């Protein structure tokens, strides 16, 4: 059967975010501007980054996303995330390796509600006609400098976003334990561009991904989108294949 990740999350629970409850309220995030840069990475450089429950993507790739959220329950903020392309069973997922939010309240809420491994820092999203740029600084040091070059309009229907998986300690069956959490935002796209991705600075260790190396660029997109962070519906055992270890903790999104 397909390869599995090798990361045993139960061995280092202290470094995971902790949720007080899995009964998280949803956030509406309208009119977000989201730049995504997809880049292939050598499979060997992802060793130890993917939980045992999940399969690596073939080939391995990462997704850098820098997003400006003009409206949220904690006010406007920018967010940069790094996800590792992977599979939860048969489904494409982006496993969240690291994140930086531009405000302390946003970082705190994202950690405690959805288990984002996020810290506060300086996240800039700049849109120009010849490029869209995302830069991230933490403790004064640039840890990501990326851009979408020569953006060209495409239809929103040409863009696909995959769901996310985060790892966190969360209360389940009476104990707080490491679990995987599916985060599956909705997207309503208003405008989308496509172009060449360029990453000129990437500090892998600062994204909790020491050893991760970038290889071939795939594609970059930038969209204006109504999105959300929904209530948590699915959690997974971090050690079992997800087709055995997935639990639905909430029914459909109709209740949101």
């Amino acid at each position, binding site marked *: 059967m397909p390869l599995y990740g090798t990361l045993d999350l139960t061995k280092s629970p202290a470094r995971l975010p902790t949720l007080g409850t899995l009964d998280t309220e949803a956030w509406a995030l309208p009119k977000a501007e989201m730049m995504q840069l997809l880049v292939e990475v050598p499979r060997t450089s992802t060793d130890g980054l993917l939980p045992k429950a999940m399969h690596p993507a*073939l*080939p391995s790739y990462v997704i850098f996303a820098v997003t400006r959220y003009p409206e949220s329950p904690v006010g406007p903020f920018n967010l940069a995330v790094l996800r590792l392309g992977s599979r939860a069973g048969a489904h*494409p997922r982006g496993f969240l390796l690291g994140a930086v939010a531009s405000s302390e309240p946003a970082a705190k809420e994202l950690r405690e509600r959805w288990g984002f491994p996020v810290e506060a820092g300086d996240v800039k999203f700049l849109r120009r006609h010849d490029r869209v740029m995302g830069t991230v600084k933490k403790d004064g040091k640039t840890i990501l400098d990326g851009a979408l070059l020569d953006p060209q309009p495409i239809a929103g229907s040409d863009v696909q976003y995959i769901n996310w998986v985060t790892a966190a300690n969360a209360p389940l069956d009476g104990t707080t334990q490491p679990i995987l959490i599916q985060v599956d935002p909705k997207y309503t796209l208003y405008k989308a561009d496509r172009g060449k991705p360029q990453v000129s600075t990437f500090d892998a260790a600062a994204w909790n991904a020491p050893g991760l190396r970038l290889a071939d660029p*795939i594609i970059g997109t930038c969209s204006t989108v109504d999105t959300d962070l929904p209530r948590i519906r699915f959690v997974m055992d971090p050690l079992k294949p997800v087709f055995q270890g997935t639990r639905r903790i909430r029914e459909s999104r109709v209740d949101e």
Partner: protein
Amino acid sequence: MKFGLFYEISIPRPWTPEKERTVYNNCLEQVKLADELGFDHVWAVEHHFLEEYSHCSAPELFLTACAMVTKRIQVGHGIVVCVPEFNHPIKIAERTATLDLLSGGRLHVGTGRSATWTELGGFRANPDTTKKSWDEFVRCLPKMWTQETFSYQGEFWSMPERTILPKPYQKPHPPMWVAVTSPGTEIDAADRGLGSLGLSFAGFEEQEKKIKEYRRRIKSCEPVGAFVNEQVATTNFLFCHEDEKTGVEMGKKLGNTFNYLATQLISTREVYSSPSYQSLGLLPALRRAATGPDASEQQTEGMAYGDPARIIRAVKKWESLGVDCINFILNANEVVPQEQVMASLKLFAREVMPVFAKKPADVAAAAE
């Protein structure tokens, strides 16, 4: 109704030379038996870099081996990737003509453009242009096979006047097909007079719609070749067993394993936003069908597994929808032991095939 075998050549890890050889030999043994049993076709995919899902990266060699160990069965590329980074069109014309000669005119040429980023990215091909390059290739191939000399100046390739040799054994040329996975490709097939080589596992309702549209449009097609190849083939899993429950259980295991491996591949649309790949191809249906290799539930509508009576019902339904040929996947990751694959083929030939076609006496004898 015609019946064929369809090979991805899926090989489980760890990949030792002996295991690779054993699986290839198993496939050849199945093809040889299928030839004796009266199956009509053996098809082989062209895939690259797809790990356990497929090791069939040189189908022309596998199909040549098939042709050399058989007498009647027709051999088919299912498909040749018509993207210049994968295959130069001159080489496609030469290789297919040679295989047609070696097989004594038993070749079918399926065409397509690849659906995965794993493959397109691996060859550094541009996903935006694969439909267009495919269109050029399928228009050139018949001319390269049939004209004394050929020259071409196109968007994706060109050549000065030369004599492309050898020419195929079949006259005017082998039948041409196109892989149909994405919605709308059946229209591409019909408009060009190509056979519709269905590679998805959609249910009856969806297939019926596609077939009706294909039959309607092909009546007014402008064929790219010297003749119209109006045929509809579909893909299925085969596991035939005297006991229905045993047959269904093994069939589901086969289907779930195949589907699970398929869903590990990166569809182009997943990572590369492009108007050329509006659909995820066959993957959404597979994901719905395969929640895991040990899943107990799977869509079984129309699947050719179970006992002969159950399979006959499924095949009759496909026949009633207008399907001309069903091509069977026999194994995935070797989850079905070889002796059971062989027994399944024999039972199918003995109990199911006679319902759909009269076969020569020696075929009936081979099934005993």
